[in-house]
């Protein structure tokens, strides 16, 4: 069965990059354009991995993260946080569990590599 990916990202251009990079890869990609939509979609279906933009309208990544982790089905699901800033800029995230960091810009190889790594370690 194909892995289900949820991407929560409110920047339309960024959404375009994700779709382009993941086209033809063995994943089903679902995109949510804001936090509420992302949480709603995550409830409707069990995803295997979530990519989360940190700075979004309405809710910051760490809050969405906390909400997802509260849901029993997402306790152990790997999450990738994406941002134009580097990991050091977000001291609070170092305390969160089972999360990795993806700094923008990234290319296709880096994105696929990160996804593979998360699946690898959570197996």
């Amino acid at each position, binding site marked *: 069965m194909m892995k289900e990916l949820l991407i929560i990202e409110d920047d339309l*251009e960024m959404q*375009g990059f994700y779709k*382009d990079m993941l086209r033809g890869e063995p994943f089903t990609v679902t995109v949510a354009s804001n936090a509420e939509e992302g949480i709603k979609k995550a409830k409707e279906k069990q995803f295997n991995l979530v990519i989360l933009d940190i*700075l979004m309208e309405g809710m910051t990544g760490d809050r969405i993260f906390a909400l997802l982790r509260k849901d029993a089905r997402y306790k152990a699901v790997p999450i990738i946080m994406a941002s134009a*800033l580097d990991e050091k800029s977000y001291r609070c995230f170092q305390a969160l569990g089972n999360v990795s960091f993806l700094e923008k810009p990234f290319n296709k190889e880096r994105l696929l590599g990160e996804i593979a790594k998360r699946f690898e370690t959570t197996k």
Partner: protein
Amino acid sequence: MLINKKEIILKINSIIFSSLDIRDVYETMSRELLKVIDFDRLTVTLITENNNLYETFVLSKDYEHTALQEGVLYPMEGSLMKRVVQFREPVIVEDTSLGRFQTDKVLYAEGIRSRFGYPLSYKGRVTGSVNFGSKRKDYYTKKHISFFSMIAPQLAMAIENTRLFNKTREAEKKYRSIIENSPDIIFEYTKDGTFPLISPSVERITGYSVEYFYNHKNCGTSLCHPDDRERVQNEVLCVLDGHVDSLMDLECRVIHKQGHIKWLSIEVLPLKEEGKIIGIEGFCRDITERKRLDELKNNLIRDVTHELKTPTAKIEMAIDMFERALSSGNKSLLEKGSQIPEILRNNLYRLKNATKNILDISRLESGIEPLKLTDISIHDIIKHIAGEKKESAGKKKIALIEQLPPDVPPIKADSDKIKHLVNHLIDNAIKFTDEGKITLAVKILPQAVEITVEDTGRGLDKDAQECVFEKFYKENPSAEGSGIGLAICKHIVQMHKGKIWVESEGRGKGSRFKFTLPIAEERKEQGTNQVIRLKAEG
């Protein structure tokens, strides 16, 4: 007679030590002395430390006329003092009219015919002299000298004591005023956890009174923030144990009586008694404001970096996308109507805009750019800009309405800056409004004109109303724009000594951005085209 003299000597000696005020001593002593040594004038002089000047230390007040003055320094050269000091023995001048010493001339002129000076020495050094003067010629003899020699050592000691006492008292006074007025907390802290000394500024900084510190053992530790306590204790212990000589800029948090946090920077030295370390002394500076600014600065840097990195990242990713399309032969991305050029253009624009705004605000904040003040017509400026904005408002089907009274008085202002300001407010109104209208209004107040840009757009809640004028504030962190625009507007208004604010009934209920500009007063001096540098207030 001899008994009488001895009694007097005893009496004088006890007088000498009865008071630390040398004037008291002098007055009573001279009264007693007069009983045994006749004189018309009695002075005490002291030598300055480098031995070439002397000072008339005390002088009885009731001389009718004298050139001598208390507290004035006279040269040693040619004086009787010099001889007294040099030979460490008393000198008698039988007749001042002979002019043996230069000072004799002065004294002679004032009616003193004979005199003698007696050295005052303390710890082996001649510190000054006591001088008797008589209107009678040839008055003083060895008898007087030998009599006075019985008083001189005590007198010398008493004078020295007073001198030292006055010095310390002065130093102490200075020291106390430093402590009492210091903005920093000056303290002494002993190993048993008490504060023998703490300056009043502690109350301003921590909320606790000086008495509280005197009465509460270990309150230093308990006021320290729990997260900093151990570190501070360890550092202080190093000083107490003599492992380090001092602590510089030891930063820590204390909890104010009202519960909030204050940042202190502490400098510490060991407090010693007889060579043993018994505690610490030093001062604490309130650096809360500095810490707040540091944090603000760090956040600003983070926000600017984000604002610059996001478009840069997307440009890089668009190029990567383009190259992959090339090598994989993905036609749709390369053909006409592809999103790639659009992405590149958008983000370059965003980058350009952000850099321009950052430059603008730093130029404004540094104050290097003077205002070019001329008489401007707010009416014309708004009319003109409204004309330009008709198109972009029309595209969103938003009506632009002007409510401009015809007789708006001229304003003394920088035309370019005011245009920029109005332009930005209207741009924002269009940007954050999806339907309805934008109203541009001018109201004439007694001292100022008030300009309003009102929209029926998304509005602002209370929190947002407070923040919109801050640099880099964006309600939606991922929204386009650097969040500097309104900070620039605020700066411009303040440079013109006006006010800017926003009103909104809440989210979804539209906003009213308003600012005032003072009406140009009739200037006393002529000339309108002056370049004036006004520093923004607040």
